[in-house]
């Protein structure tokens, strides 16, 4: 969660304790739901007829500081108590250690509204499920500094991962890496043919290391470019969601000729002697093929007032917020995730539209 945002949102619910984070550009959201059974004792408190269960957010660094050295914690700490004291404005983290030592940390918190990204895995046309190790092995071929990666489907049911090269980067200077995975390496594959999405690798890597460490299979739900990609991990006592914004196509993508609908590439066959030769020969002959139909332009929707709907866990519609972003424009990479989707060329002006996953519904920011 700390790889995503600087603030940790704690939300006790009847179905468990939810820990959430969102990044500053609102293009990444993660939620970890720990079921009551995960804990030795779980009391979410009581919600009155008019009040909801208490929620708060704390500084990520302060929270992490309590659990600083995991190996030594595992050796010395017997129990950990997390106590929310609304009236004292403190989140208490109490570590009961060996030799009768108790370490009590009192963290200041801020009350907050519900942090909820708008997404629906049911609405995603494509779904992949793979052991975390497979994805970790795939991602290792890309440099640690790579910002964005494109996940796509190719001929023969193969799944590809390729580094995303920005439109304004010089093609003659940029190295392009592409990895192909066979369908049977995945636990399940249900994808719309010719689909592809581009998302930020950095935030995904965080979830990937968690998945690897807990040995849980990872499910990727995705749809059209521009709609968020949702990564989920499921366990008996833990449910994890990571939602990332994806790049939407403005025009036909020349970056991935092998992943659009028109593709003449034979899938690399099983016998290697033919595998690479025919694949590489086919890559050469496909030089002349057309780029494929252009993707639809991302529709511009009228802005709606930012409103949170605490009752609904998942919304059907994505809401956009007309947020005039003052001051310095955000880092270029996020700019493309956000603004590129709705800026038509030649359009003047600083008024930019954000595809917001999690509304900033509390009045203070």
């Amino acid at each position: 969660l700390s790889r995503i945002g600087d603030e940790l949102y704690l939300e006790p619910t009847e179905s468990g304790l939810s820990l959430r984070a969102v990044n500053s550009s609102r293009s990444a959201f993660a939620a970890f739901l720990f079921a009551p059974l995960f804990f030795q004792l779980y009391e979410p408190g009581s919600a009155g007829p008019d009040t909801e269960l208490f929620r708060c957010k704390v500084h990520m660094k302060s929270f992490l500081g309590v659990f600083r050295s995991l190996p030594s914690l595992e050796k010395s700490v017997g129990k950990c108590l997390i106590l929310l004291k609304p009236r004292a404005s403190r989140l208490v983290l109490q570590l009961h250690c060996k030799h009768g030592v108790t370490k009590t940390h009192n963290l200041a918190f801020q009350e907050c509204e519900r942090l909820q990204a708008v997404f629906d895995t049911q609405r995603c046309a494509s779904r992949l499920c793979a052991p975390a190790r497979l994805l970790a092995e795939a991602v290792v071929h890309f440099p640690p500094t790579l910002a964005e990666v494109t996940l796509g489907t190719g001929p023969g049911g193969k799944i590809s991962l390729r580094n995303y090269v920005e439109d304004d980067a010089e093609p003659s200077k940029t190295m392009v890496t592409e990895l192909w995975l066979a369908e049977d390496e995945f636990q399940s594959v249900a994808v719309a043919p010719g689909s592809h999405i581009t998302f930020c690798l950095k935030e995904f890597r965080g979830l990937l290391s968690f998945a690897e460490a807990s040995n849980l299979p990872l499910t990727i739900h995705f749809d059209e470019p521009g709609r968020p990609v949702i990564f989920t991990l499921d366990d008996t006592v833990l449910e994890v969601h990571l939602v990332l914004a994806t790049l939407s196509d403005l025009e036909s993508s020349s970056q991935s000729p092998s992943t659009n609908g028109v593709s003449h590439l034979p899938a690399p066959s099983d016998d290697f002697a033919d595998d690479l030769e025919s694949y590489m020969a086919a890559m050469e002959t496909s030089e002349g093929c057309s780029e494929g139909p252009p993707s639809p332009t991302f529709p511009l929707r009228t802005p709606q007032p930012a409103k949170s709907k605490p009752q609904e866990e998942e919304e059907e519609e994505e809401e956009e917020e007309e947020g005039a972003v003052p001051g310095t424009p955000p880092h270029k990479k996020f700019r493309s995730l956000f603004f590129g989707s709705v800026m038509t060329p030649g359009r003047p002006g600083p008024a930019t539209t954000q595809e917001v996953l999690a509304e900033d519904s509390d009045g203070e920011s």
Partner: protein
Amino acid sequence: MRFRAKIVDLACLNHFSRIINTIAKLAKTCILRLTVCKLYFILSDKVANGGASMWCELSQGNFFDEFQMEGVAAEHNEIYLEFVPENLWRALKTAQSAKAVKIKLTNKHCPCLRVAVELPSLSSSSRIVTHDIPVGVIPRRMWNDFREPSVPDFDVSIYLPVLKTMKSVVERMKNLSNFIVIEANLSGEMNLRIETDLVSVTTHFKDLGNPPWASEDGCQSSAQGRDLESMAEACIDIKKLQQLLAGQQVNPTKALCNIVHKRIVHFILLHEEGSLQYFIPAIA
């Protein structure tokens, strides 16, 4: 112009990758020269490189199971490509468990070296990773810029100390000064010295030995008739020396340097698989 090559042996792949790693540490961009029998990595002594130049020569048979090339023309059966060695290193770095690695010169949107790695996988078919490394084709008229540098008329030639030791000395000196003086004599003695306003540090090496150089035509070179104790020195950019030493992960079979007093230091590192020469000019 065609080039395709294949490595299947993991040890060969490993060696080749290590050499590419060394090259990548020495040069941001360099020239790859391909001939029927050899590969060369060349950095010419332009001002942009700080005047340093490099010549690395490898026999392709030591690494590749298959190696086919067709140069620009029959009587000029060579290919010269400009590329970023760091890219090639990145492609090879994660290929260390590969079943095979194929390299091919392609020209899709622009000339590229396509490195295709076939990796083992649990499924019935292998995993394939391709890396398209953009390259620039050097036209024949410019080939003369990249000829093998001749061994300079040196004053002293001496074997280098154990590279690991030399590397750790130079790394510490790098924190104190930007320039280092290498001096050596024909009695097997070498000193590495830095001098600043506040401090001067010298490390002395003895009994290094001086390589015998047969003079080609029997005439006297600068080294002959020279006083055995007299030191030839050159003050060079310490960073260049540190990069050279940092790139050597395996001890070379032979490592020596030739010093032309106050002009240039010429390093020669000989490995089983090939040789590396690196020239660092002296700072005036």
